[in-house]
């Protein structure tokens, strides 16, 4: 499954970068995430519950960050397994300054998926991946708004 796109956050790049490295934020932002903890520098582990057409199942999730160039680039190595199959592969994220103090995120992921999520869920996989990505990005924007509001409150 390949998902690629761009998304423009309303907020500065340094804060977007911060959010993307924060497991507490990510666990709220990523749809279906039950738990996400940092187990080592640049390594996160957790549990997700994913619904795919007629199927719903829990998947273990392990993410390792690499090639980090703050605050503009990182690669995620993703390994996820569960009763309905697996997903593994990489996602690449690039951040750049955008107009009006915003940040443009360019992302691309290439996941190999297998098991029942492919054999039964094939026809909804692409849609589900896109919808999860959209929901995740919107949730990140909300988290960004909150953090920026908090900071302006602190000031």
């Amino acid at each position, binding site marked *: 499954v390949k998902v690629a796109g761009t998304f423009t956050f309303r907020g500065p790049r340094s804060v977007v970068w911060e959010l993307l490295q924060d497991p507490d934020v990510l666990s709220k932002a990523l749809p279906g995430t039950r738990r996400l903890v940092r187990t080592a520098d640049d390594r996160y582990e957790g549990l997700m519950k994913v619904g795919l057409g007629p199927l719903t199942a829990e998947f273990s999730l392990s993410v390792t960050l690499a090639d980090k160039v703050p605050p503009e680039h990182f690669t995620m190595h993703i390994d996820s397994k569960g009763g309905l199959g697996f997903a593994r592969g990489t996602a690449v994220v690039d951040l750049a300054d955008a107009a009006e103090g915003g940040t443009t995120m360019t992302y691309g992921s290439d996941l190999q998926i297998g098991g*029942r999520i492919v054999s*039964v869920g094939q*026809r909804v996989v692409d849609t589900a991946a896109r919808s999860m990505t959209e929901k995740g990005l919107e949730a990140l924007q909300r988290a960004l708004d909150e953090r920026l509001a908090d900071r302006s409150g602190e000031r």
Partner: protein
Amino acid sequence: MTPYLGKRVPRNEDARLLTGRALFVDDVQLPGMLHAAFLRSDHAHARLQSIDTTAARLGPGVVAIYTADDLGTYWQAGPLLVPPPPVPDSVFHVCTQVPLARDKVRHVGEPIAMVVAESRYLAEDALADIVVDLEPLEAAVDLERALDPGAARIHEHLDSNLAAHVHQQKGDYDAARATADVVIARRFRYDRGASAAIENRAVAAAWDARSEQLTIWDTTQAPIPIRNGLARMLGLAESQVHVVAPFVGGGFGPKIMMFYPEEMLVPWAARQLGRPVKWTEDRHENFGATTQERGQIHDAEIALGRDGRILGVRDVFLHDTGAYDPYGLTVPINSQCTLLGVYKVPAYDSAFSAVFTNKPTVTPVRGAGRQHGVFVMERLLDLAARELGIDRVEIRRRNLLAPADFPHDHGIIFQDFTSLTYDSGDYLPALEQAAATIGYERFVRDDQPRLRAEGRRVGIGIVNYVEGTGIGPYEGARVTVEPSGLVRVATGVGTQGQGHFTAFAQIVADTLGVDVGSVRVVTGDTREFHWGTGTFASRGAVVAGTACRAAATTVRDKALDLAEQRLGVPRDRLELAGGSVRVKGDAGTSVGLGDLAAHANPLRGAVTSGVEPGLEATAYFGPDRGSTANGVHAMIVEVDPETALVRIDRYVVVHDCGHLINPTIVEGQIQGGVAHGIGNAFYEQLIFDEQGQIANASFMDYLLPLATDVPDVEMAHRETPSPGNPDGLKGVGEAGCIATGAAFAQAVEDALGGTVEILEIPLSPNRLFALMREAEAP
């Protein structure tokens, strides 16, 4: 007097089947029964690094979990069921499946661990708690690329993924080609499908420690070989293992495959645990765990004279055998042999390579490779007809084997290891009858031009096929007259809906002069009959049916001997009728078969030395070679140019399976086979991605033809008897699906006015749409 043979006797078994009283394996419920579930590979090719079952063992209701290491010496690769044919210079590498993966998994769905629990729910829940570390490997999925030197190696002890290579030839093809007026070469593809029996596989087993007996209910097509093999593997006497193949909801070939991992493990676990264990395959499992068929790529060419006569055929093809090859080369050998069809082919040069791929194992599925051969040959003839400006029926007419050519030895080796010799056939009248029935000439001359002028895309297809049926080695039957007058018949074949209970009863009833309703047939129970091979290759009626005839004939002789003594009338004046032996022309002087049966098994007095007690006999039949059925499929289709959907308006089958035992059963076989063939031609295709994942392993996405997609087949029977058995029988089990793809391709091509060449099956509306668009592109 033959009151039953050839008659439309209603099927004995239907009342039980239609009222839900027939026993299927999943109906077996025993006190204390446990349920098994299997952890299967999500990967098509991966190294098994570790398995941790610790957490899963603690799950509620979990009784046992087994991995490869837990099986000890019971872990062994399955047997090679069919050795390679004795073709000189052949290559064959045996790699059979294992009960549970030990170091590697080689296809999606391969079992890794078995959980036994108090219920299937609890067993499946525990599967989720097993931690498996699979290190993914590159997968060899594409049939051609799997032979690249750099392709991922599926069996590492081999040099490549080549499983086999067989080259057969007769005549001198190069010389024939040199003299040809026309040579036509194309590449043909025939892709893979599931067999999609309505009942998935199931195994239940119970070990009785007091009697030291193991009873196994199995959806197998081969109960006796299952019994023999399991006894050997389990270290039991064959007499301690009782295998029952009760009613089975469709076999179609994959259920003759053995030993499936579940078939080895469920009985073993029942014995280990001392409790009955059952496993029933679910539909999703079936897509990865049950064998499949059909991926082949043919590079074929035909050399002809200007008059359309075939001078020779050359074919080089690849056959996808999947991850393992336990069934040897039956499927590609069938393709190789069946390509010759009903035609005179003076020179034939055919070589195939069987290739391991990271996909479920390929073993015969109804047709068993025959449809590939028919597809290639019939398509080549269609292309030749167009090239030479000869009518499609006429080019076939010119190349048919004539009655004087039989028996016809094609000079190559068939799947039963004897020479490919057709026993009998009368091909031209079958072709003419099919053409007349569907109105070929009128359609081509009048209907098609008229409808085309209205903008409708209608086409006709008409193709020939042969079906090698009724091969050995042998089957047997025991016929017993009980003192009540009821007749009991037991045979070793399993039954999966073929109407054996009726067909065999008809044969025995005729021989003994009894009512067909008084004959009770038992199949597929190793307690009832001890010897046999199984139901495959359209051979039940021919081989087991003939054994029934032979056993009944001996019983008849025995009854006449006894009646001669009882009635004091010489046997040449006696006849069997109405359940009695009676004096010809004097129905009042008779003795019932039941009385004779009681007399043959006396409580006092003596049974003469050398005479077996009871009115009973056992007989076997082993044909030297198979009997060759044939037929013609013709269909008229209409293609919707916007959606590329194809509607089949008419479907005609003229077929010849020798003498008919029961036309209703034969017609059921053909109608069902055509449904299977239509699925294969236009709906059913397994889609594998580059990693060997099956993208459509459910009936949401794997399309079976609906009742509305399958027309009522108009059928005509021709009866050219086989000289190979006394009743002149030939098989019919696969006839309906062998020619469908070829007929469909021709008809669709014709409907599109020759703008598109159809060189592949299955088509789908999507694929056909793409082909139509390609053809329209400038």
